[in-house]
């Protein structure tokens, strides 16, 4: 057997090596692999930028287990107007459902029947009660969540879409399936009586304020919905129906990796009912049910959510509302205003009675800043000229606002096709 050295001699490589003298230092890049991320499972909230000319609300909740819960549906954008930066909501939601291979939602909640929470629903959803609204391209509501006055109130100013939703909710309640009605108002009992039914016979479809909606649970779905409003006692005494006041207000509590994250869904509630919610929750030791990490601002950033006076540059909240925002809001919180862009001081829009109000926005900004959090306006995110859906991911690390750059993808992509043997420089 020839040894290695003999072979080296044979091939002309000297075995004698030089004294080590070379100790050069070169900079050296390590090897992060930032282009390859694990896909984390999560819950997800999506707030849609709906229109440049009209405030509206639509929020989608994607649960980690694949269930989808939609809060309100308002396709208010004028798609033929290039200045309207609002999205084509039916297309966006339709694409999202087909991507998920779903024929509809697991739950669709309408917080109340105002036009800016229901517009276009008549074209999008499949209505069990109406043959005319059952074409194959429609999506199912799943379980329909409505406040009690959706069933009971009879008004002439409802839009076609709102009327259809009302009729659908009534149809389902009468038939005894696929609906959840919030609060057991006297009027609801009367309505059921007029149909020859009793509260008792529909008990399983009714949930009072102060309770959890039983359709989703923390253990099975990673979320539970606590009902704050409408209040049954209040509605009993309510002769004049204030729909915003009686709209659905909820707190969603998400669990992921044993960590809790809370989302307050404000609908269109004003400071008086909001204050009542605070007082009632305190009286029932339910303060936890008013903690929030993500705030879906009531009424499109209206000052009336905070207090009676708009203020010059900042709206001052009434005491209970201040407690809700400043004490119950968590570190790193996200406040979302589903509204048009906040007007600049002195502009025409700034003088408008309708929200969003600059003064209210200034208060929310201050709250967010104090908590190292974010204040986001749907029609301003990520920029006013090209708003995109506001996405909040909920994981074991709490809520996180997605900040995706909106430019041509080629400008951002910087990953080459991999080849075997490639290594870092």
């Amino acid at each position, binding site marked *: 057997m020839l040894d290695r050295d003999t072979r080296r001699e044979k091939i002309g490589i000297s075995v004698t*090596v*030089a004294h080590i003298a070379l100790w*050069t230092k070169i900079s050296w890049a390590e090897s992060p692999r930032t282009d390859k991320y694990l896909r984390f499972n999560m819950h997800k909230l999506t707030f849609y930028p709906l229109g440049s000319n009209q405030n509206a609300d639509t929020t989608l909740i994607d649960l980690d287990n694949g269930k989808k819960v939609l809060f309100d549906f308002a396709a208010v954008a004028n798609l033929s107007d290039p200045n309207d930066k609002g999205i084509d909501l039916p297309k966006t939601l339709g694409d999202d459902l087909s991507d998920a291979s779903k024929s509809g939602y697991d739950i669709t909640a309408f917080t109340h029947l105002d036009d800016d929470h229901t517009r276009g629903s008549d074209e999008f959803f499949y209505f069990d009660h109406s043959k005319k609204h059952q074409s194959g391209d429609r999506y199912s509501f799943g379980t329909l969540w409505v406040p009690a006055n959706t069933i009971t109130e009879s008004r002439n100013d409802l839009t076609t879409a709102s009327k259809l939703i009302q009729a659908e909710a009534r149809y389902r309640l009468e038939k005894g399936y696929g609906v959840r009605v919030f609060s057991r108002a006297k009027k609801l009992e009367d309505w059921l009586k007029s149909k020859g039914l009793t509260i008792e016979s529909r008990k399983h479809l009714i949930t009072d304020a102060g309770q959890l909606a039983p359709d989703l649970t923390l253990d099975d779905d990673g979320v539970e919905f606590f009902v704050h409003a409408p209040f049954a006692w209040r509605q009993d005494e309510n002769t004049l129906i204030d729909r915003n006041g009686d709209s659905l207000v909820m707190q969603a509590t998400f669990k992921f990796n044993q960590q809790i994250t809370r989302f307050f869904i404000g609908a269109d509630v004003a400071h008086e009912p909001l204050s009542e919610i605070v007082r009632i929750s305190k009286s029932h030791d339910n303060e936890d049910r008013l903690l929030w990490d993500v705030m879906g601002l009531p009424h499109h950033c209206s000052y009336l959510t905070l207090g009676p006076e708009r203020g010059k540059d900042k709206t001052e909240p009434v005491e209970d509302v201040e407690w809700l925002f400043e004490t119950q809001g968590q570190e790193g919180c996200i406040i979302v205003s589903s509204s048009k862009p906040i007007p600049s001081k002195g502009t025409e829009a700034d003088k408008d009675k309708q929200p969003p109000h600059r003064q209210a926005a200034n208060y929310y900004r201050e709250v967010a800043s104090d908590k190292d959090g974010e204040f986001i306006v749907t029609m301003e995110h990520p920029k006013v000229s090209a708003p995109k859906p506001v996405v909040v991911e909920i994981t074991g690390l709490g809520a996180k606002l997605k900040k995706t*750059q909106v430019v041509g993808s080629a400008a951002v992509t*910087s990953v080459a096709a991999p080849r075997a043997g490639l290594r870092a420089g």
Partner: protein
Amino acid sequence: MEDEHLDAGGLIIATDTLELPRSRELAAAMETGRLAFVTHIECRRGSGDDGDVRETIVFDVEVERPQRCMHDIRRIERIAVEFAAADNWYPEVISLRADFPQVPHLNLRDEEFPRSLCLYDQSWSEIALRWTPTGFIERIRTWLAETAKGSLHQTDQPLEPVLAGTGLSIILPPDLFASWDDQDAKQLQVGTATPEDNCRVFSTHPDPRAGGLSVTAVCLMAKPRQHAAIRRRPKTLAELHDLLAIDGTDLRQQLRSQLEAVDEEHRWKRKLLIVIAFPLSRDADLTVEITDVWAFFTASSVAEVGIAIGVWMKMPGDQQLGTVMGEMLEATGSEIKIDVIAPQFGLSREAAAAASGTLADPCRTVAIGAGALGSQVIHLLAQSGFGSWTIVDEDILAPHNVARHALSPMWIGWSKATALAQEVSEFYPTDVSPTPIVDDFMRASVRDEKLKEAVDSSELILDMSASIPVARHVAHDLNCNARRASLFLNPSGSDLVMLVEDTARAVPLDCLEMQYYREVAFNESLSKHLAPPAGRIRYARSCRDVSSTIPANLVGMHAAIAADELRNANRSGSAKAIIWQASETPMRVQPTEIAVHDVDRTQVGEWTLVVTAHAVGRLGELRAAKLPNETGGVLIGGYDLSRKIVYVVDMPNRKPCRNVLSQQGF
């Protein structure tokens, strides 16, 4: 609260006076306001150590950040990007926040602050091709976002090394230390791996006569640490001690006992090399996931290091050392300079197998034939940790062989067996070296004691001689229980044939050979299998000195298939017979697995009759069909006249697709 920012260096300049293309592009992308989440702060110009122009863009980025961050990343982070005029390295990305945390994937710098972000795992030349300012900013934002979540370093990604390398590496024998607790100092010769001036790789040799620098190597294992790289390179032994002390390792104490054990004759002559294993854990529970190994070269002798850390005192007289009792607090080792070298351990059989995604198999194998196919098969198998080899071949490597052989031209004139054994032995030098037998196998198996011994103790006898007499000799004439296998190419080299016996040798190699012929005879798609080669070349003067023209790529491809299949077949206990046919344009390989039938052996006088179960079955069928008449017909098979064996493999009701009978003695 406003974050405190560090100075980005250089002087502030107007954006429109930027000169370097990338800095201009980056500033322009920010100034147009088309990018969300980024705010331009200022531009600066300075010069690097080499006098080269450096331009720096300072900006704030908004980070996508969860409520509860794993690392202290702020919603807004101030970043400076420094571009060099030469543009031959990554632009340096620096966090200007004075208290930016220690996190994974920071670049090693001489100073700890400001911290430098390591963005890429590809070379700058790759990145530069596709660099866009937007993509670059997004890369920075993603780095920060993932760091905030604690997921920049993926759960499926190996842990980050403790130290960043210096570009120097040293190749140590794989079995240098018995374990990380090995207290015995090792003597090594160290030299540059090549005579080139800029060689940064050092090879080692255990033989003190090998020349080079004489080194004493000691090893120790540090206490487990949660993976977080050391961002400042230790420059002296004292600094290294301090870094290890953070995790509770007392370097000086551990060195003391090891140095005291070094033989006196080595103490002044040999430089000290310290090899330290850092057990790393991913999480705080300190469950060790990998062990990161680094070598620290002291460029000082064992004695000098010992004196510097208070093990010994220099005594009067020539190189006399006195042992220090107790601890000398001032002896920290601060005067001992160290350099960081990334150690690599020489290939072991296990490491070779792991690199191929398989397990090492030291199957004792006698390989007959180290020709074009044989050499490449042996090479591939050995390279991936298979086989303890005895290689038998009587041929000398001739120039024309090199065209298709695993051996390089430097071995011309050497016997193929010797040369191949030498090459294979270098794959994993600490393992048992292959044994070359330079002889004709049929003769050597009778007269060569070394071969007889190898055959007796072998587990596999692999015939790659391309010779039927050798294959038959292997099948019949060796008195051992090893499994036999045959690998050969068809005449044109387009097809590969593998015949492997079952472990019990129920269907021996010669019977597999006969069943292979049957397949060739009856399988229409194999009609060209035995066709003669298109061309032959004469390589010397004798009339027998001709060789087929078979391209090296074809042999290489078949060798690769053969190596893989042989390894698989050896793992399973059953017999295998497979033909792989290559067809050209586009190159495609079609496998045909031959059904292996059991055989029945009957002694008829001095003749042995071997009939396959398949033939017996066919006979039965035909007889049943013809009864009460005579069955009649033709038996297909072959003869081994020298051993007086008759093989019957089939009784067809149709003729073979062509006449292979005469070619193969059927």
